[in-house]
């Protein structure tokens, strides 16, 4: 527990602190870059990009050995991975443009084939000179707690520059992912902006590989973005929230993994992100499962209450047993008719009902059937519009409905 608190406060050693900062920056960058992908409905392109980095790592290693180097220089490996990921990205774009295959087939084939090529290269490297290749496998699943100082620096700096890049390009990215056609109409080149977005995703993937592994970096791009979508309907807010959630997952994950060395950093970060996702899926205030459920029940009760009261006021029988139970439970009706409370409510509803009918005549072009009978008219019309409707009701042209 002591190490946990120390790690939380960045006091558990220089290396741990650096890894934690790196994980936070990476989380923020991945979360916000992933949001644009998610909103453009291309979340799984990131999966293909990530898998397409593997052959690049292999080729870079072989070339560096061939040139007489160590082969494990992180910058060299990252450059190699970026190059093959870029080729993969190009093919994903080329196949649906050139042939009749859909994008998902292109994503899947690039993913499988490039990963296969990467595995082939890994087996080549294994036979080259034993021992020296150690560490390349860590790109698959990320490294555990023990990370080299050099790697941590690369992740921290790379994460910082990715965030900077997203900040600079936030306007065109937001507009294109919010409304592609609008972006075209105001003169943006959507294809170029898409490429820019992919470039950012590629950057995040490449720098995140060493920390969480190329298979799980996809999780850091997708999960925070999907989670953030539950908390807001505005693109610019979703980007910020996703960045925050990604950074939070990175922070908690890195701290947990520093305090318990058997917990590998990558999977723990992803599990934290999953926990945040599940919490949001159920508990988010507007689009969470619980609030949707409660909202739906409320709407159902509103409709039944209103229609039931109007029916009784008209002197007719309520057929639906749900309505009868609802009215009785809320003390609005007895077996012999409406209670005082019920009568009061009927008066209110009648005013609203008359306003709706009048409003339809005053504003014949307005589509008001969506909320009619569900919400009060005050929630649909502005004050000025309502004033006009009331004036119309007072005039002699309108005949109000009344029940005795």
């Amino acid at each position, binding site marked *: 527990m002591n190490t946990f608190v120390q790690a939380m406060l960045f006091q558990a050693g220089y290396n741990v602190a650096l890894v934690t900062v790196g994980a936070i920056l990476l989380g923020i960058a991945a979360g916000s870059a992933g949001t644009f992908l*998610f909103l453009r*409905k*291309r*979340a*799984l392109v*990131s*999966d293909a990009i990530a*898998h397409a980095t593997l052959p690049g790592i292999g080729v870079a290693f072989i070339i560096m050995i061939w040139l007489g180097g160590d082969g494990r220089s992180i910058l060299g490996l990252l450059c190699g991975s970026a190059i093959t990921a870029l080729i993969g990205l190009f093919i994903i774009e080329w196949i649906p443009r*050139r*042939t*009749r*295959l*859909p994008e*998902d*087939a292109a*994503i*899947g*084939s690039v*993913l*499988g*084939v*490039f*990963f*296969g*090529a*990467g*595995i*082939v290269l*890994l*087996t*080549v490297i294994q*036979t080259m000179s034993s021992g020296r290749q150690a560490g390349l*496998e860590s790109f*698959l*699943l990320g490294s*555990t707690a023990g990370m080299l100082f050099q790697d941590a620096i690369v992740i921290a700096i790379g994460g910082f520059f990715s965030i900077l890049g997203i900040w600079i390009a936030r306007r065109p990215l937001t507009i294109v992912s919010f409304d592609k056609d609008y972006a075209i109409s105001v003169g943006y080149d959507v294809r170029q902006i898409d490429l820019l977005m992919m470039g950012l995703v590629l950057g995040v993937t490449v720098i995140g590989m060493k920390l969480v592994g190329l*298979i*799980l970096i*996809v*999780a850091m791009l*997708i*999960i925070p*973005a*999907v989670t953030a*979508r*539950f908390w807001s309907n505005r693109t610019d807010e979703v980007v910020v929230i996703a960045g925050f959630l990604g950074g939070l997952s990175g922070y908690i994950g890195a701290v947990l993994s520093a305090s318990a060395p*058997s*917990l*590998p950093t*990558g*999977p*723990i970060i*992803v*599990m934290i*992100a*999953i926990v945040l*996702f599940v919490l949001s*899926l159920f508990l988010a205030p507007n*689009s969470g*499962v619980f609030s949707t459920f409660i909202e739906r029940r409320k709407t159902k009760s509103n409709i039944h209450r209103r229609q039931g009261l109007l029916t009784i006021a008209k002197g007719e029988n309520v057929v639906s047993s749900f309505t009868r139970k609802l009215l009785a439970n809320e003390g609005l009706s007895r077996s012999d008719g409406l209670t005082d409370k019920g009568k009061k409510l009927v008066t209110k509803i009648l005013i609203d009902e008359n306003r709706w009918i009048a409003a339809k005549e005053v504003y014949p072009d307005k589509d008001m059937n969506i909320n009619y009978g569900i919400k009060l008219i005050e929630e649909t019309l502005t004050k000025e519009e309502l004033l006009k409707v009331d004036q119309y009701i007072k005039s002699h042209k309108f005949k109000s409905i009344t029940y005795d």
Partner: protein
Amino acid sequence: MINEFIQFSLTPILIGILAGISCAVPGNFLILKRQALIGDAISHVVLPGIVVAFIFTGVISTIPMLLGAAGAALVAVILIEIIKRLGKIEPGAAMGVVFTGMFALGVLILEQTDTSKVHLDVEHALMGNLESLIWLKAQGWQSLFDLDVLKTLPDELFRIIFVCGFILSLTVIFWRWLKIVTFDEEYARTIGIHSSIINFSLVIITAIAAVAAFESVGSIIVIAMFICPPAAARLMTNKLGIQVIWSIVFAILAAIFGYIIAGYGPLWFGSKNSVSAAGMIAVVSGIILLLTCMYGPCRESVGQKKD
């Protein structure tokens, strides 16, 4: 030479071919229904499945592992569906959330349990071990007719024969339904076909194929075999039946050439060691797809720009 081929190469090639066919045939329908990536999702969740199966049984044996993998595939498919509906999230993102989450959980459990002594590691699950499925007792072609020697064939071969036969016969039996549901769900509904049952069965078949193939060729390579042969076949013809046959042909070609290049290719370059056969099969299937993308007779959709 022949003897060596039968001992060391015949069974891996056969298993590669059968695994390829088992994946490629359902892949045809997945691609046409724009669900190509469900194979991707399923092959990632195989790992948590076998890890959990290992924890429950405590032994590395095939049947519990296959059941665990199949169970995980089923859980993944159900979770994807739930998240899609509850959260109103587009299918791709829902898939991404589920399979990466389950994969992370699998790695985490694997690191927590003492599985290091037994042969259960992530790389094995990802890469497969096609090369180790050898038939040492074989002595030339006559061994193919010797029952006692045939019994010593790797169990993986019998399982993949069974699965491949199962998938092929289901495809033949339900051909008409599959065809109608694939092309026109609305029409299928009007003539009384429950398209949701067919769709769900297709996913289950996909899971069975993925699990059976993962055992020998590794889970990631499975994705290539789900998508590349059918995608290449799609560019060869406009008829579904012929497309399925092309996809089988491509899967066979990929398996044979992939294995031979992996096993003997490095020798031609003077290296003593072979490279991963499963990986090379995926690469060859990719090359086939690339060739059909450039020269396939039906590669363009109507009105597509020729450039």
